[in-house]
């Protein structure tokens, strides 16, 4: 297996885990609750691995994208409801990522935020236009690996490894007030949502088709899902742990994405800061590309248009016009002046609400022998799939009350 084949997983994971929401929520989780929320990342990571592998397997076995099959399986009406929900969720998320990239560029250059948002929209559109799919993956996935600086920074600050290890065991910290317990609950829900964003599976399965995966690539799919998402999770846990070690004791609330970059600046100085900001820039830009393409994939697949960036933009014109229009719509949201953090919170909230609608059809499809033949879900995939479906349904039910009661995790 060519290591470059892993770039789909790396891009999905680096742009999926360590996107703008993750940067904020992992850092805030560490600052407020120490290492106590690490287990939620681990739990959610297994969930996203399960569903990513399933979506890749469906794309390979049925040789059709998930949204095509979803419409056939669910029917037009219910399929349209899922499409509408995922469009709104992905568009808000894309706007949050775009705002996040503009904010990072604003930190790096000092140039006005709105100007950077416009510039970045143009740069992202040009990059998708010019680069073939595999190069889009490589550029954003591999350059996003600058984020590894957060894991190196964690080692450099000599954290209490025993406490970090303790964070892997599911628990609720002792001695929390009822208000703090609710905030802890909100963070659990928000992390599950941020790790299992719906756009990740749409992007991943369509990406598998873009790469021309065939049944012989079942193993590549499995390894890509496990290693890619595992890497993303590791980086998110590093950000949380750095935050627990550096920000928590100093009572720093890493409210804005730039705060996370300081984690690398403390042990490594100016260069640590620059590398962290560059990693954040490429990871969040990659997430903006993923959310926008995932949305365009869904729309094109649902309506039966020609789609994919393995084709030239003019060979799939409706798909091309759709992703350009979606970037323009995301930019319009950013230019209304809405706060990036508010967009992040809405993206998290809306995503968790639509997660069950996203993952149920996938679970049904992957278990259907008529579509999947010998590649249908086995006992393990079925058991894990239903367990995670129950978990995200529970999280979806709890999300809105917790969001309101905790003012979006702000107590």
């Amino acid at each position: 297996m060519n290591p470059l084949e892993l770039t789909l997983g790396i891009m999905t994971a680096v742009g999926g885990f360590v996107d703008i929401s993750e940067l904020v929520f992992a850092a805030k989780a560490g600052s407020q609750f120490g290492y106590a929320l690490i287990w939620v990342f681990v739990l959610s990571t297994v969930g996203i691995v399960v569903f990513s592998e399933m979506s890749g397997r469906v794309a390979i076995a049925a040789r059709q994208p998930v949204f095509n099959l979803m419409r056939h399986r669910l029917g037009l009406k219910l399929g349209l409801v899922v499409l509408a929900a995922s469009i709104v969720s992905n568009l808000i998320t894309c706007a949050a990522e775009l705002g996040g990239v503009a904010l990072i560029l604003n930190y790096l250059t000092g140039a006005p935020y709105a100007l950077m948002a416009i510039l970045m929209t143009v740069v992202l559109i040009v990059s998708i236009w010019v680069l073939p799919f595999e190069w889009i993956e490589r550029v954003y996935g591999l350059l996003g690996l600058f984020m590894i600086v957060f894991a190196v920074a964690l080692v450099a600050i000599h954290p209490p490894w025993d406490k970090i290890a303790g964070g892997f065991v599911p628990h609720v910290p002792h001695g929390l007030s009822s208000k703090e317990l609710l905030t802890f609950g909100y963070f659990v829900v928000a992390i599950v949502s941020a790790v299992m964003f719906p756009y990740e599976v749409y992007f991943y399965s369509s990406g598998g088709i873009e790469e021309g995966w065939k049944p012989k690539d079942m193993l590549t799919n499995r390894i890509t899902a496990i290693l890619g998402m595992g890497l993303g999770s590791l980086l998110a846990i590093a950000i949380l742990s750095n935050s627990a070690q550096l920000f928590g004791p100093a009572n720093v609330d890493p409210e804005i994405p730039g705060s996370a970059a300081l984690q690398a600046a403390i042990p490594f100085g100016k260069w640590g800061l620059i590398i962290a900001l560059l990693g954040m820039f490429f990871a969040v830009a990659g997430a903006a590309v993923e959310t926008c393409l995932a949305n365009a994939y869904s729309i094109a697949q649902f309506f039966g248009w020609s789609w994919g960036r393995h084709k030239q933009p003019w060979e799939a014109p409706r798909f091309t016009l759709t992703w350009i229009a979606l970037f323009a719509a995301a930019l319009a949201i950013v230019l209304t002046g809405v706060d990036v953090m508010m967009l992040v919170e809405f993206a998290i909230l809306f995503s968790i609400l639509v997660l069950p609608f996203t993952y149920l059809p996938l679970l049904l499809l992957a278990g259907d022998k008529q579509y999947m033949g010998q590649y249908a879900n086995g006992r393990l995939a079925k058991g894990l799939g239903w367990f995670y479906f129950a978990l995200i349904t529970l999280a979806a039910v709890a999300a809105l009350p917790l969001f309101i009661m905790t003012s979006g995790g702000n107590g």
Partner: protein
Amino acid sequence: MTPDSPIKLVSELLDLPLFDMEDKYCGIVDDVELEGGAGKPLKLKALLVGPGAYKGRLPGWAMRLVKLVAGDRVVRVPMDKVRSIKSAVHLNCPGRDLGLDKSEKAAGKWVPRWGAL
């Protein structure tokens, strides 16, 4: 399955992808046209492709929304142009002969043909 075999319309035909004889993706079976009437045998006459065929399958407000995003064009594919029906429908002629490429062509006028690697 051949076009003449008995078929379960909803589970085996509606919403299936459509490929032409060059294996080019041409859209989705959005509805079907039947021939016959009460007391007479029903026969599948044509497949309908394009969001315009959603009329009758969706409430009015949803149809207006779909029209805004995807238009309301419908292309009729006579059953004698269908080669096989499996997990996808395959045609025995190029999709362009039936006008299945018209919407993509129309959108293509807005997309420049340069600059991509």
